[in-house]
């Protein structure tokens, strides 16, 4: 093994080993558990940054493990996996801090943090997967490791949500497995090559390959919550706030979106997909999802449910961007939204969790004047919400700007139209919240107020959303700098030769 392979292994183990140790730790040792978690996540960030540097300078990270003829596990660090892995590891650190604060004093924490660490290991595995088989392996394990987190509270409602999640996710996994085997049978490999399989297969197997593409997208679409495969996501809201943050911003939904990127860019390749002509289908589904999610979000009074429908809508920007594959600007917009949506959405969920934990607020109708009680939390929330609407200088503006430019360049007026309508809808469902919070007048007392520490809430709950909100602003302001998500995405697009 060379140093690159050691590095990949270490990246995976840096959360796996703490996870296993945490399972074995007695419930009471919360300090040791927190230290393990933090050390693991900080180590992981350092290792991943080292990998990013290596990738930038053209080093090839690869581990191959043949299983049986035709089936091999392949871990591969390329610019796209670096994007997702960096996002996940940074947000994992923040979510861990948040979760430690959030779950203080609640039962079964070693169970929770054990699965939490495994979940991140698996997410990084998805990021590093080098072929569809490895992707499938981690994709299924992601379902298994997130399930205990969703049902963590053990209530009837959470059990039902968990069951629905499993039915959706595992059915999607089964469709995905079928499609992967079929692709392997037709093409002979599922490696992520950067250009897709040889286009000679298009001449001979066009129909089958189109069908397999649809099945693959259905398989990952369940996690990416493409309409009509989104049903599990709003229900999964019963999970504790850090889990929701993780599901929406880092792990599950993102894994689905990342899968779409991989299938389009690496498995099929832009050229083949343009020949097959199936991308308009993806664009249509993504557009419908964007509008549907926004419209449903409008109707929700429950804050977390509104955020959930907003996720459904926002994640499809990624799919929409990538489906305009012949427009590099649109692709940049889609790819960069993978990071930007994660940053904004995790901020919003952290804040929603703070409101629920500190004041017992779950509904938007209870939020009148809450900004006076929790100004910092609501400031972070506002930045996230304005980002979602796409107001400069937040990162949300950058994503939408590139998507819009790409659509204009393609002469795709209906995509521009979708973007405009969607932004309008975003404003319609976020602005009233902000107006209520900042300018509303408090109605009676808060549902369940607790005084948690010197600040408006516990420091461990307050710091993570402030940090992410800061990044949401900063990454938007310095988007054109050398080191920013946008710069890295441009690097990716260059590498793919688009």
């Amino acid at each position, binding site marked *: 093994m060379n140093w690159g392979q050691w590095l990949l292994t270490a990246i995976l183990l840096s959360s796996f080993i703490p996870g296993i140790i945490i399972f074995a730790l007695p419930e009471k040792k919360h300090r040791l558990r927190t230290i393990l978690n933090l050390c693991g996540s900080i180590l992981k960030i350092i290792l991943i940054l080292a990998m990013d540097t290596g990738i930038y300078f053209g080093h090839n990270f690869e581990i191959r493990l043949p299983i049986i003829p035709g089936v091999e596990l392949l871990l591969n660090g390329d610019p796209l996996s670096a994007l997702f892995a960096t996002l996940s590891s940074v947000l994992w650190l923040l979510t861990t801090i948040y979760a430690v604060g959030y779950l203080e004093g609640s039962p079964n924490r070693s169970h929770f943090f054990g699965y939490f660490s495994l979940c991140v290991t698996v997410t990084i595995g998805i990021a590093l997967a080098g072929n569809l088989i490895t992707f499938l392996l981690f994709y299924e394990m992601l379902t*298994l490791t997130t399930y205990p987190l969703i049902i963590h509270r*053990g209530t009837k409602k959470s059990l039902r949500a968990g069951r629905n999640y499993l039915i959706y996710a595992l059915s999607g996994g089964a469709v995905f*497995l079928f499609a992967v085997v079929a692709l392997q*049978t037709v093409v002979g490999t599922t490696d992520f090559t950067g250009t897709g399989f040889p286009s000679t297969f298009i001449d001979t197997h066009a129909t089958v390959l189109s069908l397999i593409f649809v099945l693959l997208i259905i398989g990952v679409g369940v996690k990416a919550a493409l309409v009509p495969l989104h049903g599990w996501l709003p229900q999964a809201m019963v999970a504790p706030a850090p889990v929701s943050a993780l599901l929406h911003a880092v792990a599950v939904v993102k894994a689905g979106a990342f899968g779409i990127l991989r299938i389009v860019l690496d498995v099929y390749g832009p050229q083949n997909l343009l020949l097959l002509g199936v991308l308009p289908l993806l664009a249509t589904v993504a557009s419908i999802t964007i509008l549907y999610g926004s419209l449903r979000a409008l109707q929700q009074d429950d804050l977390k449910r509104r955020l959930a429908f907003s996720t459904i809508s926002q994640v499809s920007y990624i799919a929409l961007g990538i489906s305009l594959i012949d427009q590099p600007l649109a692709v940049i917009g889609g790819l960069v939204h993978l990071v930007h949506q994660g940053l904004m959405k995790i901020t919003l969920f952290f804040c929603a969790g703070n409101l629920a934990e500190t004041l017992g607020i779950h509904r938007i109708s209870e939020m009148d004047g809450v900004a006076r009680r929790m100004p910092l939390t609501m400031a972070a929330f506002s930045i996230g919400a304005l980002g979602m609407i796409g107001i400069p200088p937040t990162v949300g503006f950058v994503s939408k700007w590139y998507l819009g430019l790409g659509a204009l360049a393609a002469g795709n007026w209906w995509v521009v139209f979708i973007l405009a309508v969607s932004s309008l809808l975003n404003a319609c469902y976020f602005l009233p919240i902000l107006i209520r919070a900042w300018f509303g007048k408090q109605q009676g007392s808060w549902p369940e107020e607790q005084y948690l520490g010197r600040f408006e809430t516990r420091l461990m709950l307050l710091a993570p959303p402030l940090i992410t909100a800061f990044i949401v602003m900063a990454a938007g302001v310095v988007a054109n700098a050398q080191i920013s998500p946008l710069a890295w995405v441009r690097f990716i697009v260059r590498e793919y030769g688009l």
Partner: protein
Amino acid sequence: MTAFQLAAPAWMIVPIILPLIAGLFCFLFNRRIFAIALTAALANLLGVCILIYQLLFFGPMRCHMGGWQTPIGITLRTDGPALLMLLTTAITGLAVTLYARGYFSYRILNPRHAARHQQQQRYFWPLWMLLLTGLNGLFLSNDIFNLYVTLELIAISAASLAALSGKPASQLAAFRYLLVSLLGSLTYLLGVVFLYRSCGVLDLDLLQNLMQNAPGIRAALALMSIGLLLKTALFPLHFWLPPAHANALAPVSVILSALVVKGSFYLLFRFWFEVFTPIITTSALNFMGTLGAIAIVWGAIQAMRQPRLKLMVAYSTVSQLGYLFIAFPLTRIDGNIHIWGIVIFMAMAHACAKSAMFMVAGTVFLHLGHDRIKDLNGIRANLPITVFAYGIAGVSLMGLPPSGGFIAKWLLLSSALTSSQWWWALVIIVGSLLAMIYVFRVMSHFFVIPEDYAFTKPTPVSPLMEWPALALALISLLLGLAASWPLYILAQGNVVLAQIFPGGLP
């Protein structure tokens, strides 16, 4: 001194003689029975390892007992599939031996029935050793009459084991099991008679050369197949399995479900694809595949509806056995090299996962005094390792990566699609989904710890009951990652499979 060389074929006798002697000792001695059985199980594993070493370095072997050549003498032979089945049996057998020790010790602690439990343990060990003898003999024999003897040995010891618990329900189930087994053996024997009448030999190799499409041989094939199908419990001949497996003592359920049904299946498969191959028709293969498909769906639906954990696990066996038969119609394809790989993988993964699951069910039953699925909430707090083992075994049953079950399903799916028989692929996918439902139905109860749950600690279960289950579950999970080793063993002496590994082990 040649007999003691590692290359000597005589090593083949070890896995047969050793458990037999141990069984006799277990009958004769009153004390230290567990030590005898454990020694035998360990030595058996060692013997199998030596046989695998032989296979890897000297190729498949024949051992003519007493120096008599065929057709007069009795022949034993080793090859890839036989050794992998022996290895699975040896590993599972060792785990069961340890588990049974913990299980019986825990039951004897209960003063109310201590005498009865002592008695059960007294009978368990010799019968288990006899059963092991029969199984090892079955995998090694190369002679259809010898095989009948091993089948009979397995049938009688298995039925006696099933009756051990002594409850009326289990007595009834065991009696029915005995009748079915004997009927199966007799049908098989009748087939042997037909075959001997037509061909005049009993040795499998010689029979293979004499195979022709004659009425007597066709009748023999039909009779032998029906007899073995009855023992393997393929739908619709599965009626006896769930009550017999679910009402037996936990270690017995493990043995019956993981090992005994695999024995008769192995034999059936060997007959169809090595001996009778020339006269097997495509429609016969499709018929078996169809029955397998129905078994997968029917067994899974029944498993979903069971109120008790052990019954659920037993119906899951009915369902999982169906996968072995789906492999049948996928064999007649040009260039299909995976057929032994598929069934052996499936059998190995299922043996390990299902043993782990029955161990879990037994532990939970002993711990709580019942195994009603809806009342299992909170058991995770008391039995974390056991619940973990259940989860991992479940992953393998569902066929999720990287388990051995996944590799088997991958091979099945890719054979089905390569041969354009996509409908089998659909059945496999649907079967996995149903398996997910029944596995998680229990899992969701395991995971939840209700708010008002009191962490009562009845007598803590022995580690001997928890760790073997976890070890087997982990083996079934990691089997997928180490899949090339079993395939490499299979490839030894197999002309078609050997093409996969032109340059040795990858």
